[in-house]
């Protein structure tokens, strides 16, 4: 469980079960989320991610178990304005302008006309769409509509924002802008992100909720800096080309205890600290880079630790 004793959790879920007929979508799910860094919700299709999102937002009721959002039951009026979400595939009303709808949501959150207008403009500016204020949703592209629905989730700077597949369907530039936005706003707002793009979640999230067949496994996104000096650590390297002798060459380095080829041209290197090594020995990552340099092997990426994908699936 990833909580600090001194911080009360923003979200606390215990013994959560959800059945759809005879099918159990979630099995005894338990976790806590504290204020701070974005949290990732990952898992294969049909794992129960959207069901968990819907339960947290109060869209559906649990079969059993308990959900507490900011100390209140899910869907409680006390969470209005404090919890916002971008549900998957939810659309704005095509008959009204974006400004009109965002203002309406602001008013429902208790803002007056002026403040609602300000919030509509501010949130659209955050997602880089201030110019579409008076457009109707149908006049926008799929990606723009998605960003507008992200804007609605940011009205009033809520404490928790849940984004279900926020960057799906966005072009790389705008997906990057949304990631940047999440990174910038993290702190005052705690984001819960669901995505199939693990590299995206890896960049943003420390806490990972991994759902598989309705069962939750929790992960801390491990990087080597969190490890003690005498602990086994990992380095992931992605090469530019396939090099047949690369694994053997890596194993010739004293501290490298194991090398696994995780994907095409990607290697997971296990580092076992050697307490007898000389004080002037180069750090292990430098030694690996030196090896590449001497052999003129180009690399694409060097990750200090395991990639999220390797953490979850290897």
């Amino acid at each position, binding site marked *: 469980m990833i909580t600090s004793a001194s911080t009360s959790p923003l979200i606390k879920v215990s013994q959560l079960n959800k059945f759809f007929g005879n099918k159990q979508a979630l099995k005894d799910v338990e976790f806590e989320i504290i204020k701070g860094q974005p949290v990732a919700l990952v898992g294969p299709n049909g794992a129960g991610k959207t069901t968990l999102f819907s339960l947290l937002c109060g869209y559906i009721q649990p079969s059993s178990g308990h959900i507490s959002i900011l100390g209140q039951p899910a869907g409680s009026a006390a969470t209005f304005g404090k919890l916002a979400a971008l549900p998957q595939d939810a659309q704005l009303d095509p*008959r009204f302008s974006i400004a009109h709808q965002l203002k309406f949501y602001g008013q429902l959150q208790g803002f007056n006309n002026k403040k609602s207008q300000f919030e509509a403009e501010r949130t659209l500016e955050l997602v880089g769409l201030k110019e579409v204020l008076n457009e109707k949703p149908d006049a926008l592209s799929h990606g723009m509509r998605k960003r507008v629905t992200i804007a609605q989730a940011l009205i009033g700077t809520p404490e928790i924002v849940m984004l279900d597949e926020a960057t799906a369907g966005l072009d790389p530039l705008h997906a990057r802008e949304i990631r940047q936005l999440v990174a910038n706003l993290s702190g005052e707002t705690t984001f819960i992100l669901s995505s199939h793009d693990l590299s995206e979640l890896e960049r943003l999230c420390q806490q990972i909720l991994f759902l598989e067949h309705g069962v939750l496994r929790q992960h801390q996104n491990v990087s080597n800096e969190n490890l003690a000096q005498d602990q086994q650590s990992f380095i992931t390297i992605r090469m530019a080309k396939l090099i047949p002798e690369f694994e053997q060459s890596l194993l010739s380095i004293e501290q490298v205890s194991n090398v696994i080829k995780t994907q095409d041209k990607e290697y997971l290197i296990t580092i076992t600290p050697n307490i007898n090594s000389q004080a002037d020995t180069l750090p292990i990552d430098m030694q690996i880079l030196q090896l590449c340099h001497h052999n003129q092997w180009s690399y694409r990426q060097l990750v200090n630790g395991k990639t999220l994908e390797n953490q979850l699936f290897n």
Partner: protein
Amino acid sequence: MSQPSYIQQSLFRVWALAKFELIRLFFTKRGMLAILAFATAWFLILYYPVDSAVSIVASDGFKDMARETFGLLGLSALLKWQVSEFTLYWLIALFTFPVFTLGASSDQTCADRTRGTLRFISLRATRNEIIFGRFIGQVLIISLLLLLTLFATTTMAWWRDSNLLLPAIAKASQLFIELVIVVLPFIALTSFFNSFLRSAKLTGVISLLFFGLGTILVTLLTYKISAAQYLNYLFPGVQLIDIVGQDRIQVSHYLIPLIQTACYLTLASIFMKRSAL
């Protein structure tokens, strides 16, 4: 400045939702077209049947025959109305407005539910507030349309005889209250259907089946079990035949629609709370 109480916040949200419904009708293209169609239909009703009938009913030669016919139908009290326009208006409005209401209020939440918009709203308003907000919005819309027709009828009477202005305003006010009470359970019924159905068309079909097959079923049941006649109180408009003559009106004639409204809104609230958004 002190924080508004929960009830104040809740009322504010209900009003915001109701206001949004009004804007949907008066400030969207589709809404404006609906109003235009409504106004045209009522122009035709007022210009042809009402205006023509008034001159016939008001003529001395026809009065006796009209009295006899209306008497047979239990409508003789209507002939005593000083403003004849409202006699015809009442007969038409009493039976057309409920049907119109079923159509006009058939999409209170279902399109928003299908589109997912209700998910955005439900993070900012309780499900009860959504139901009541939309219900009040529909009541305001139908009331405004009723006022429009009453205003037109009053103007017609005034045009015919300027002395009729004050009696026409008085009668219009009375009929406005009566007609609003009549349509309330119809709006509440569609609120109830909207709490679990996902399209306005389906709501229309279910409403048709409810009134069509429902009344047949209750009639057959009553044939076997006489107590089943009380099931007729399930149907909004059950009191219409009793009030059309405006004779021997009882308190129950107003209580029935109000109780039906309360019951259907309660059912809508229960179903909405259980339904997935």
